[in-house]
């Protein structure tokens, strides 16, 4: 096959490109890079749940909304330093995940998907009726005005690299082996002694935490949060697009999918109605012709993976 050192060299080159971007790229390009990093993080976490643990969650936006609102409330009302508020967003997302896990893990398959979606919608309605967070008018996150673009970009980049590394290391560990066993046949794996609830629970908590952190950095960039947009289904729709095009169940799939998605979104932002049609058409086309996504098809055809997680 290919020479051994090509993977680390590729990764180092990519990292060098990303780390030095604020030095040579325009502010707009750095903003696009930040969006790519955040969507890679969100999609990797969604992929961890759906592609590797078999839990197709349509409710990841509850952690996005909660993380964003925690950032807004703790930095504006309690004066917490802004990056610590991002961390608090992750913590409240984990608390929410623990609170709902009892009821949500009793649901299987399509019921799990709809249950998580309904919880996210219910949280959206709760926040829009709550005077403390200014009802549906939304909140401006004023302490974020004075942050520099490169500061937020580096926060997003650190989050993206560590979440991809986390997924990669997780999948190569014993937990990853258990997850793939559960994904393939959960009754057989339970018969072999895999504690299904514990594995799924840990993945759910990890994805909740990192999604909350990513939401914090997202709203550091966007500076304005509104309940129905923060808890809306469009987050999951975009993540679905990213993961389907990139390749579900692969580590590089969300990366490629996020790059394609953000670039397409920027190019098509002038044609307001047509961009959704084009996204839908591309997704349907990929489902018909390459159901494993771009990265999945490359893996099947050539057997080459940037982040190999198979056991040899």
């Amino acid at each position: 096959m290919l020479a051994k050192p090509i993977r680390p060299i590729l990764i180092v080159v990519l990292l060098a490109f990303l780390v030095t971007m604020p030095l040579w790229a325009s502010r707009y390009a750095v903003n696009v890079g930040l969006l790519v990093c955040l969507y890679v993080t969100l999609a990797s976490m969604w992929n961890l749940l759906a592609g590797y643990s078999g839990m197709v969650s349509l409710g990841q936006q509850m952690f996005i909304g909660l993380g964003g609102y925690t950032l807004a409330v703790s930095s504006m009302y309690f004066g917490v330093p802004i990056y610590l508020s991002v961390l608090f967003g992750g913590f409240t997302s984990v608390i929410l995940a623990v609170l709902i896990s009892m009821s949500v893990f009793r649901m299987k398959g399509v019921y799990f998907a709809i249950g998580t979606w309904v919880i996210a919608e219910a949280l959206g309605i709760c926040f829009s009726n709550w005077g403390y967070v200014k009802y549906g008018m939304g909140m401006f996150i004023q302490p974020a005005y004075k942050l520099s673009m490169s500061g937020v970009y580096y926060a997003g980049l650190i989050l993206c690299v560590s979440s991809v590394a986390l997924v990669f290391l997780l999948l190569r560990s014993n937990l990853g082996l258990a997850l793939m066993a559960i994904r393939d046949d959960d009754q057989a794996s339970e018969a072999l002694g895999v504690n299904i609830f514990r594995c799924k629970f840990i993945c759910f908590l990890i994805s909740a935490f990192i999604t909350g952190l990513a939401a914090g950095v997202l709203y550091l960039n966007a500076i304005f949060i509104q309940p129905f947009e923060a808890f809306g289904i469009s987050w999951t729709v975009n993540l679905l697009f990213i993961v389907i095009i990139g390749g579900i169940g692969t580590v590089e799939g969300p990366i490629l999918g996020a790059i394609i998605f953000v670039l397409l979104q920027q190019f098509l932002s002038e044609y307001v109605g047509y961009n959704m049609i084009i996204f839908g058409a591309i997704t349907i086309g990929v489902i018909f012709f390459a159901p494993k996504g771009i990265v999945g098809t490359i893996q099947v055809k050539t057997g080459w993976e940037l982040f190999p997680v198979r056991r040899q």
Partner: protein
Amino acid sequence: SGVLVGMTFTFYPHSGTQYLIIAFGVVIIGGLGSLPGTFLGGLVLGVSQLFGGRILGPGFQLLSGYIILLIILTVRPQGILGGR
């Protein structure tokens, strides 16, 4: 039924998701694969929305429907009249 909805409520291009959730809720409460269940589910969802709106306030009408749906999903996922 879409025409009837259009005659009764206001609608706009994004209102499809709202009705999708209502449809999911009705079918899940009543039970997948059971037609009298759907009727019962619609009844339960509508009445719970109205009661919730009366008790908690007008903004919480949809929320009370969602809470009933979540309770049914947790306690009896196959719905009230669902089989299997």
